[in-house]
């Protein structure tokens, strides 16, 4: 594998061909915020949080899918990008009903963490207060659409890793919603294997274990990468 040298925020970085700017930056100790991205799942570049500036291009590029190239000069935290990220987070907070104080994921929520990262002390945009349902039909898990940021991690993990494809995105635009089966109660969908991977990868408290109370959801989405690695190792073993 040939090596590409580039500069990220003034640091010289050497990365293998095919590496993404996001991976290269993380290897170099530069944190670029993400939400829809999760190692082990196909990238969708939908949340736009990881947009970076690349010299010579007037368009912002999502670090999660942009491959490194020789001589590339990347800026990940310019004032313009900071402002964009804060707005993205504000857009997410205002389009749902994110009430951290009464959320199972309080204290262990990626959205909450990103809000701190981007310096969001309040939303400059008005809250929308949409009317969204909660699905408690599954025996072990629950889905609170109020807390869903439509990152589609659950859709991808169920399809790409578990192979059950219980979830999909339905409707469109502001009416987008995660559905199980034919937009049925989750508990009524035969395809679900109750594996809980969707709960594990959910960045917020939208998918949770029933019985968890406020701040009791302690999932670690990065476990997915470890799980996939173990699976690969086993497949490759003689």
């Amino acid at each position, binding site marked *: 594998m040939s090596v590409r040298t580039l500069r990220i925020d003034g640091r010289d970085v050497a990365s293998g061909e095919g590496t993404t700017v996001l991976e290269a930056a993380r290897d170099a100790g530069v944190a670029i915020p993400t939400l829809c991205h999760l190692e082990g799942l196909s990238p969708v570049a939908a949340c736009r949080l990881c947009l970076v500036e690349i010299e010579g291009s007037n368009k912002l590029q999502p670090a999660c899918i942009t491959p490194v190239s020789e001589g590339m000069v990347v800026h990940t935290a310019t004032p313009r990008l900071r402002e964009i990220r804060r707005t993205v987070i504000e857009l997410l*907070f205002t389009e749902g*009903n*994110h*009430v*951290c*104080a*009464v*959320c199972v994921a*309080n*204290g262990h929520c990626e959205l*909450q*963490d990103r*809000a*701190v990262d981007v*310096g*969001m*002390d*309040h*939303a400059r945009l*008005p*809250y929308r*207060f*949409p*009317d*969204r349902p909660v699905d408690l039909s599954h025996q072990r898990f629950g889905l609170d659409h109020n807390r869903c940021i439509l990152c589609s991690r659950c859709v991808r993990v169920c399809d790409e890793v578990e192979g059950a494809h219980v979830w999909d995105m339905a409707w469109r635009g502001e009416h987008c919603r995660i559905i199980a089966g034919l937009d049925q109660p989750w508990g009524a969908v035969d395809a679900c294997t109750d594996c809980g991977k969707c709960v594990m990868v959910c960045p917020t408290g939208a998918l949770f274990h029933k019985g968890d109370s406020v*701040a009791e959801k302690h999932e670690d989405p990065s476990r997915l990468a470890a799980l996939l690695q173990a699976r690969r190792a086993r497949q490759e073993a003689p």
Partner: protein
Amino acid sequence: MSQPAKLRLATVWLAGCSGCHMSFLDLDEWLIELAPQIEMVFSPIASDIKTYPEAVDVALVEGGVGTSENLDLIRQVRRRSRLLVSFGDCAVTANVPGLRNPLAGPAAVLDRSYLELADGSARWPHAPGLVPELLERVLPVHELVPVDLFLPGCPPPAERIRAVLEALLRGEQPQMEGAEMIRFG
């Protein structure tokens, strides 16, 4: 910022659970340090004055704006205060009181609370002039009047409140960044 001899401090309680005020009381012995540096001119926990006074330096406003009374008061607070602080998540985001907003207006909220969920004697509270009317929605303070500083948290931890007050007493702008200072919830 020129420092007045004593900071005229007010705390205001709108649509919230008073938890932010309780957190303020959690400042414990530091309150004793604070006392000589301020004049508490209006507060549900430290004063009997019912009318919001003029020329307040700093107002800590807990709660969202959910009733006609809240709305009148916050407008008065804005007019009469130099620095208005949204104090806690309800003031900053509408938070728990805002959970009623997806329901279609006050009638639906009253039906749900006083009729559907009632154990007995189900009826709407009705006392014109005594019980203030619910607004269409509970809103964060800054969606109605300009806010100078946001102090999130449910409740904001006592340390966070102290850091803000200390900065203000020094005549500095509090640095609202990092998980210690601006985490919601």
